[in-house]
């Protein structure tokens, strides 16, 4: 056992993974001492054995790591997606048509209305991702690096933005500006605003706001690991404040490109805005066409799959941009010597401008949809008057069917987030390493998976895991909670990994190696040296998944176990059965519950995490 530990390769294969092109460690060597390094002589034998066992198991895990990862990707993401996408060329494979091979569906999506919708989706996604960065980056910077008043509220409110399903802001804006909407009822006769919002501009605006939290999370995580030393160095060499920012900003390139890539992929696969504001504005998007194909009768899975292929292909746009931006550079800046950041004091005028900018964003992202949801839930007569009533809330709380779905969604969200954050971290570690063919493939697969609408995953899971031969073998997991949770994990994993890439790519290998040099096993060195600095991004990634799953609809609708509906299905049931007000009241209550859950997690981190963890992960003093 000891021999095996000695013979095992050094940290190159550890789970966290140093970069293949790692720099020399703090001690000036690029190799890692074995577990019997200096300082271990005086230890008791039992302790040594335990440590060796740790090391052995860590190395064993490391050896298993790569095949297991690929197995997971194949089982969770590739197989279900492939089972769905193959229908575009071979509908007969799953009994969805007579042709074993045809290109007619792919040809069809390249013509007419679907082609227009695809073009719209691509350019809107590019614009929305750029808008998300343009708004999200300054907010992240202001909240992390300056004395912006109310900066503690900014982070919490960003979770609120993330929690809202995208159709909710769309309905809120629509209620405000549509002909005979609230704007006109209070005497603001502004058809120009109606024309602007109920069109491509409004669609980009809404989807762009949807991208802001992703940018915010990626950039704040990266800023947290970016010490003061870089800005100080720039200032010492005579750079102005703007010049210092110009120097530091490129160090955040992985986070920025990640944010752009996620923004693009999330937008191109969004259905909430496509089916509400874009639909009402007669501005077709590809996801609407895809859902129409899937939900029509009989459903055209082959037509939907053909659109899915093109959505997958579209992620080449952000990937090409990312590859160009990051080529050949290293972004590992977070080490044991990272210096805490001192918050900048904004001048009064700048402070006022910053507060107005942040307030404007939250007004648009939360105020308007909040108004839409609340007004819908408080009006009992479809909005015929401004008479407010709590009847919908009374119905929600009187209903015996609320608590079960709520508890289930909380549990599903927590389980999915816990599994996903582990997988997402491992994938992010691989992506943060030196670019190889493997990581490029992984990168493409993960981003392509983000770009696939959830309904593709859900239908793909039915095709892949409900095959008759599997049932004959006793593997019968369709319509069980198991498959639902696996579907949730598969849909969350790519985004989660993407969000973590920015933070993980900053971690220097020396953090882990320092632990090894002081005699800790691989796992222990990671737990004591690396985990503390990543604890905050990991917590954020957990919350990101939790909030995404809590009100997730397409996968829930197709895969939930009969008799155990999640919350989103219960809400949709009300919205679809003419109980619009009750459904909206249920949605409001659900969002509040989720916010409480987010508050508990963030509060728990603040209370329970050691001060040092929060200092390193928190990014700034003050």
């Amino acid at each position: 056992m000891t021999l095996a530990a000695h013979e095992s390769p050094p940290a190159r294969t550890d789970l966290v993974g140093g970069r293949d092109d790692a720099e020399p460690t703090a001690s000036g060597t690029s190799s890692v001492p074995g577990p019997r390094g200096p300082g271990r002589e005086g230890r008791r034998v039992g302790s040594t054995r335990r440590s060796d066992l740790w090391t052995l198991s860590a190395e064993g895990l490391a050896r298993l790591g790569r095949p297991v990862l690929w197995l997971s990707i194949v089982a969770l993401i590739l197989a279900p997606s492939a089972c769905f996408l193959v229908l575009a060329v071979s509908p007969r494979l799953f009994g969805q048509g007579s042709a074993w091979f045809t290109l007619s569906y792919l040809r069809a999506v390249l013509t007419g209305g679907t082609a227009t919708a695809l073009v719209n989706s691509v350019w809107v996604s590019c614009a929305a991702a750029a808008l998300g960065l343009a708004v999200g980056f300054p907010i992240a910077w202001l909240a992390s690096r300056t004395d912006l008043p109310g900066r503690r509220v900014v982070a919490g409110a960003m979770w609120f933005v993330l929690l809202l399903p995208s159709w909710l802001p769309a309905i809120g804006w629509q209620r405000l500006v549509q002909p005979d909407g609230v704007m006109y009822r209070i005497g603001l006769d502004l058809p120009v605003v109606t024309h602007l919002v109920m069109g491509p501009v409004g669609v980009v605006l809404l989807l762009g706001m949807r991208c802001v939290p992703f940018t915010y999370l990626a950039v704040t995580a990266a800023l947290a690991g970016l010490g003061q030393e870089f800005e100080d160095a720039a200032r010492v060499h005579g750079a102005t404040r703007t010049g210092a920012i110009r120097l530091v900003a490129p160090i955040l390139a992985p986070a920025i490109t990640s944010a752009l890539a996620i923004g693009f992929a999330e937008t191109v696969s969004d259905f909430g805005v496509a089916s509400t504001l874009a639909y009402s504005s007669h501005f077709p998007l590809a996801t609407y066409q895809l859902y129409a194909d899937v939900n029509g009768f009989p459903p055209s899975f082959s037509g939907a799959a053909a659109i899915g292929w093109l959505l997958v292909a579209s992620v080449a746009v952000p990937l090409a941009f990312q590859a160009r931006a990051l080529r050949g550079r290293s972004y590992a800046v977070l080490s044991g010597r990272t210096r805490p950041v001192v918050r900048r004091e904004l001048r009064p005028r700048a402070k006022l401008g910053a507060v107005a900018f942040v307030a404007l964003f939250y007004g648009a992202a939360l105020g308007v949809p909040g108004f839409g949801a609340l007004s819908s839930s408080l009006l009992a007569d479809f909005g015929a008057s401004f008479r407010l009533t709590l009847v919908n809330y009374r119905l929600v709380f009187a209903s015996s069917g609320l608590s079960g779905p709520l508890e289930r969604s909380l549990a599903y969200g927590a389980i999915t987030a816990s599994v996903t954050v582990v997988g997402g971290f491992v994938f992010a570690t691989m992506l943060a390493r030196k670019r190889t063919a493997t990581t490029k493939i992984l990168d493409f697969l993960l981003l392509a998976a983000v770009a696939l609408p959830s309904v593709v995953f859900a239908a793909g899971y039915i095709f892949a895991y409900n095959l008759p031969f599997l049932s004959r073998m006793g593997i019968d997991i369709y319509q069980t909670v198991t498959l639902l949770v696996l579907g949730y994990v598969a849909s969350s994993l790519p985004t989660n990994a993407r969000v973590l890439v920015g933070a993980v790519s900053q971690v220097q290998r020396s953090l882990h190696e320092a632990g090894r040099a002081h005699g800790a096993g691989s796992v222990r060195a990671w737990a004591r040296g690396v985990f503390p600095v990543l604890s905050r991004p990991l917590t954020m990634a957990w919350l990101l998944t939790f909030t995404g799953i809590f009100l997730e609809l397409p996968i829930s609708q197709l895969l939930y176990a009969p008799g155990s509906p999640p919350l989103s299905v219960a809400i949709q049931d009300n919205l679809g059965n003419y109980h619009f007000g009750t459904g909206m009241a249920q949605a409001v209550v659900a969002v509040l519950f989720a916010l409480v859950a987010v508050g508990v997690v963030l509060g728990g981190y603040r209370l329970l995490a050691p001060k040092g963890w929060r200092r390193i992960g928190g990014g700034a003093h003050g």
Partner: protein
Amino acid sequence: MTKVAYGSTRPRRPRLVPQVAALSAAGALAATLGATAGVASASSVHRSSGRSKVVPLVVYSAQGYDKLATEDFSKKYHIPVQLDDNSTGPLLTQIEASKNNPKWGLLWVDGATAFAGLDTQHLLLRGYEPRVSWNSLGLQALPKDKSYVPTGVTLAGAMAYDAAKVPNPPSSWADLLAAKWKGQIGTNDPSQSGPTYPFVAGMMNDLGGIGAGETFFSDLKANGLVVNPTNGPTLAALASGQINIALVQSSAAVGATFSDKNLKVRYLDPVTILPSAIGIDAKAPKQEQVEAEEFASYVLSPAGQKVMQTGDPTGDSLYYPVLNGIAPRKALPPLTGVKTQNIDPYVWGPKENTINAWFDQSIVQ
């Protein structure tokens, strides 16, 4: 228990791999959570006297009263029910995606065209008809091959209007094209609203064909037709004054009159009937098929009809019964003097996607 619990049918794992094990553990935990939270569980499976061992009946339903109905059925017949309560679209998507290995036992949704489509693919059990006394609506809705069982009828394209603003509403379909109604009429998109396709197809059927129907809707569009996705937004547009006349499903229109006393409902001749119906999975185990037949019989019994008429008082309960001896709820306008038509679902069902695509391209855009 859920139909298949992870612990009892564990997939073969060639070797222990940590991530897969972790996922499996999470899945198993989730399965346990789900199973304990479910309506029906293994412990609730009873052996009914004089029958084979009962199996859980998997009900796919989009009806507002389905939860109460399945609970009442379970209590009375001692048959556990697993309810997939969903919108019609996802339910049909599930059925089509899993048709090589179906997991459902009974489908209960609105719209005969969907059932006709499933029947054409041989996915429905044929030849079952409960022993009941059908009224004229029931007889109209009953298919020749008895592949599905009508349980009630609503009307597609009912006209809801604001009586305060429209004292003299249109009295025929042709009236809707008059200039005085320009920009005042709204309806739903048949691609998003299941009950709207029978309305569109019904108009085409009545006017003599698809071409004549397309002309009618194009003329409506030229007269400022406002198209919203579903009943809710269209009725909201009516309530807010954006439109003054809404063409929606009758149950939604009547339900809206409860909260907005200015709204009235009127049926223009002919109005198309939209049956709610039950279909049984042709590939389900024999015992489950028997239980599904018992469920259909229960739904058409006085007890079942009572649950249907009270379970969703402002929504799906507002239907016209298909049985003699069962009166519609008082809130429903009488059908006396109203000409109804039943479109042949086997003729119009296969045209649904084509017509919906035309509607989206030509009327919605």
